[in-house]
C-alpha cells in the first residue's frame, strides 16, 4: 500500500480561520482542497507538509454566483462546474476546459482552485521515490540538475492545468486572501514561468474564488492534446478568446498555451496576426504558425517535443477555426502512434 506520510489535520471552518492557520507556519502547512494532486504528490514524497488545513467545510468558498460577472468559489468541484447550466450558457469554453480535466470520477473531488494551483509536472519528477533516488533527484526536488536540459540554470517542469490557459485567455481574475488583507489579480499573474516556484501567490495566501469577466460578445474555446481520451494531463493546451467587430474583423484576441512551459504562455504573435483581420483559411493558418515559435516544448512530458511543437500550430489553428465557424482541417497530422490527433 502506498501510504501518506504522517501529518496533522485541521478542518478550517471559514476563510479567516484557514488564513490564520496557514499564517502560523506557511512553509510547513498546506491547504487541502480536493486532494487529487496534493495527496498523490505526498504519497510519492514530492510535496511535504507537517499539517494539512482542510477547506471542505468552508461554505463560502463553494458555489457559482452572479449573473453578468460570475464568481466561482475555489472549492467548487470540477463536476459542479461541468453541470452548471449558467456556465454552460455563458462560458461554454470554460466548461469544456474543465470537462477535459482527468476523468469524471476524479472531477467529483477535484476543485477549480486546486486545478489552478496544480504542481508543475515532468517526466523526471512524477516518478516513484525509488526511481528519483536512482537518478540522484532533479533540480525540482532533492537534486541540482534539470535532466530535461542539463546545462540549464532553471527547472522546466510544465504547467499542466487545463483551466488556466482558458481563464487567462478570457481575462479572468482570482481573489487571494491572507491575514494581511486581500487582493484580486489576473489569473495570468498567478503563475511564474519557473518549474520550482510556479505560483505568484505568497505561501500564506488562500485562493478563495475565480472571477469571470462579463461575456459581452467574447467567444472562447479550449483545445487539449493528450494520448488517451480521459485521465491524462495535457501535453498541449490552447485557450483562445476572441471578439469580432461588425464586419467579422477580430477586435480582441487573447491566446494562451498550456503544458509547453512552466506557466500558461501568451502567444502575442498569433494574436497580432488576427487583429483587424477576418478569420479566413489564411489568417488562422498564419496565427497557428506564429504560435509554433512561442512554445517551449521540451522532452519533459508524453510524446516527442518536435511533434508537440508541430501540433502547437495545428491546435491554435484548430481552436481559431472553431471560433470562426470554419470547417476543421481536412487532414490532421498523425500522432507518433499512427492515429490522427483529436481534440478532447
Amino acid at each position, binding site marked *: 500500500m502506498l501510504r501518506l506520510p504522517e501529518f496533522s489535520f485541521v*478542518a478550517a471552518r471559514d476563510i479567516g480561520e484557514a488564513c490564520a492557520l496557514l499564517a502560523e507556519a506557511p512553509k510547513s502547512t498546506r491547504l487541502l482542497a480536493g486532494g487529487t494532486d496534493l495527496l498523490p504528490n505526498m504519497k510519492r514524497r514530492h510535496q511535504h507538509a507537517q499539517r494539512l488545513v482542510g477547506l471542505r467545510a468552508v461554505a463560502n468558498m463553494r458555489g457559482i454566483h452572479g449573473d453578468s460577472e460570475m464568481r466561482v468559489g475555489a472549492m467548487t468541484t470540477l463536476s459542479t462546474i461541468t453541470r452548471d447550466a449558467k456556465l454552460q450558457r455563458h462560458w461554454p469554453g470554460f466548461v469544456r476546459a474543465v470537462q477535459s480535466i482527468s476523468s469524471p470520477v476524479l472531477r*467529483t473531488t477535484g476543485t477549480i482552485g486546486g486545478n489552478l494551483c496544480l504542481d508543475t509536472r515532468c517526466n523526471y519528477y512524477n516518478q516513484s521515490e525509488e526511481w528519483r533516488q536512482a537518478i540522484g533527484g532533479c533540480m525540482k526536488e532533492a537534486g541540482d540538475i534539470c535532466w530535461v536540459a542539463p546545462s540549464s540554470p532553471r527547472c522546466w517542469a510544465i504547467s499542466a492545468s487545463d483551466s488556466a490557459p482558458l481563464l487567462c485567455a478570457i481575462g479572468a481574475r482570482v481573489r487571494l486572501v491572507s491575514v494581511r488583507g486581500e487582493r484580486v489579480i489576473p489569473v495570468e499573474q498567478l503563475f511564474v514561468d519557473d518549474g520550482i516556484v510556479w505560483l505568484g501567490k505568497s505561501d500564506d495566501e488562500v485562493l478563495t474564488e475565480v472571477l469571470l469577466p462579463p461575456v459581452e460578445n467574447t467567444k472562447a474555446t479550449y483545445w487539449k492534446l493528450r494520448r488517451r481520451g*480521459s485521465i491524462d494531463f495535457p501535453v498541449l493546451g490552447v485557450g483562445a478568446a476572441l471578439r469580432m467587430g461588425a464586419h467579422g474583423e477580430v477586435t480582441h484576441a487573447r491566446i494562451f498555451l498550456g503544458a509547453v512551459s512552466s506557466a500558461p504562455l501568451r502567444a502575442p504573435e498569433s494574436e497580432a496576426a488576427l487583429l483587424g483581420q477576418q478569420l479566413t483559411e489564411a489568417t488562422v493558418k498564419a496565427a497557428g504558425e506564429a504560435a509554433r515559435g512561442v512554445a517551449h516544448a521540451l522532452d519533459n512530458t508524453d510524446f516527442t517535443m518536435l511533434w508537440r511543437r508541430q501540433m502547437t500550430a495545428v491546435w491554435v489553428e484548430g481552436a481559431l477555426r472553431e471560433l470562426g465557424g470554419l470547417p476543421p482541417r481536412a487532414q490532421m497530422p498523425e500522432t507518433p502512434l499512427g492515429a490522427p490527433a483529436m481534440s478532447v
Partner: protein
Amino acid sequence: METALKLNVNGEVRQVLAPANHSLLEVLRERCGLTGTKHGCELGECGACTVLLDGEPVLACLVLAVECEDRRVETVEGLSNGAALHPLQQAFADLGAAQCGYCTPGMLMTAKALLDSNPLASEMEVREALAGNLCRCTGYWKIVEAVQWAGRMSTGDMVPPQCLRERNAAGGCSHG
C-alpha cells in the same frame, strides 16, 4: 496519533480509530475489514478504489478518512440485498463483464452512481461515466452492455442483450 472516526458505511454506523494520514481506502480495507474495494495505482489513475460518497463516485485512495465523517459511504459490499444480487452485479455475471475482476468493484460503484440518476443511459453516456475506470481484460464492450442492460432491466425494459447491441449499433430494433 489516532483519532476516533464515526463513519456511515453502507447504512451502518462504524466507529473506528485511524490516524489523520489514512485514506478512506486504508480505513475501509484495514479498519473496517471491507476488502471489496480494491487498491490499484493508489494515485488516482485507475479507478479500482471507486466508492460512493454522498451518492457521488470518488476515488477512496485520494480522500482522507477524517474528511468522511457525517457523509454516506457506499462500497461494493452494500450493493446486494442479502443473497439477492444488485441488477448491476447480476448483469455483470450474466453477460461476462468481469474477467480477472479486479476493476469490477470500482466499475460497479461508478455505474451505480450513473444509473441512479440516469437508468436509460446511452452507450456514450456509459462510456463517458466509466472513463476513469481502467480494465485490462475485457476491452470494455461487455461492461458497457452490462451497465446498459442493468439500467433497462431496473426500469422494466426487458430488452435481450443481443437486441441492446443492435440498438447501440443502429439506434433501434424490433424489440423496441
